[in-house]
């Protein structure tokens, strides 16, 4: 009886620990992933708007649009990291729309890695803005 009982708590604890890590991973890592995605989305929304507002059909306009995007002070990863590798694209006529992509926001995974998750998850976001927006609010 005694021999069979020995080590039961150890096994129960290790099983519970794996489950616990998975639950903590869901709360912590998914929380960070969703925040990173949301921050990136808000950034590209603002950046696309900034770029589109500078378009005038000339190459100088495209340059001003790129500078406006680079000038935005927004950050991600709970407001600590600046965006890198931001891609700004324009409509062929250089005056209709701008598309901004923030492609490589890499969230480091903390707990889910311990139960077989990948170490890093890339959370990209992109937005398109028209240069002549329909103004819905006064």
């Amino acid at each position, binding site marked *: 009886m*005694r021999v069979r*009982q020995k080590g039961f*708590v150890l096994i129960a*604890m290790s099983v*519970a620990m794996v489950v*616990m890590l998975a*639950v*903590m991973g869901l*709360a*912590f890592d998914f*929380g*960070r992933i*969703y*925040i990173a995605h*949301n*921050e990136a*989305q*808000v*950034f590209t*929304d*603002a950046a696309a*708007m*900034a770029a589109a*507002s500078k378009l005038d059909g000339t190459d100088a306009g495209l340059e001003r649009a790129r500078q*406006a995007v680079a000038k*935005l*002070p*927004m950050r991600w990863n*709970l*407001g600590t990291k600046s965006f890198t590798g931001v891609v700004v694209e324009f409509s062929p006529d250089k005056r209709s729309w701008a598309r901004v992509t923030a492609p490589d926001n890499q969230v480091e995974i903390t707990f889910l890695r311990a139960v077989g998750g990948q170490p890093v998850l890339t959370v990209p976001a992109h937005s398109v803005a028209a240069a002549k*927006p329909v*103004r*819905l*609010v*006064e």
Partner: protein
Amino acid sequence: MMRRARQRGHAMIELAVSAVVMVSCVAGTVQFGYTFYVYNQLVTAVGNGGRYAAMRTYRAAAQPDIEKGNAAIRNMVVYGDSRPSPDAVPQVANLKPEQVQVDWVMDESGKPAAVNVSIVDYTVDAAFGMFRFTGKPAVEYPFVGRFAPAEREP
């Protein structure tokens, strides 16, 4: 008899040790999970308010008009509505319009060029302990609305 009693003591100690680990794990999960949830809501609220501010007509006949405009932006962040009803519920728990800061960036000619919306002095009241956010989350939107230096806020 002797052996049984000693085993029971063992179980108590094991329970005590594992309970400390388990409870702190659960507490941390709740704490961080809720804080991240609230932060995510704040990011969304600030983003929506920033976009509203960017597209809103900037009326600047006098200082009170500018203030009124900023108040509408703060309401948009907190309630999702520039003119909330008196019984409106904040979109984020316990967020108040005073905790939203609206800063305008002017260009050389005195026209608004961009608007900065951020959260100041907001405390997440999670289950255990507190987190305070000041200056974040923050957004900056370019101003693309109409600039009306001579108009008054209705």
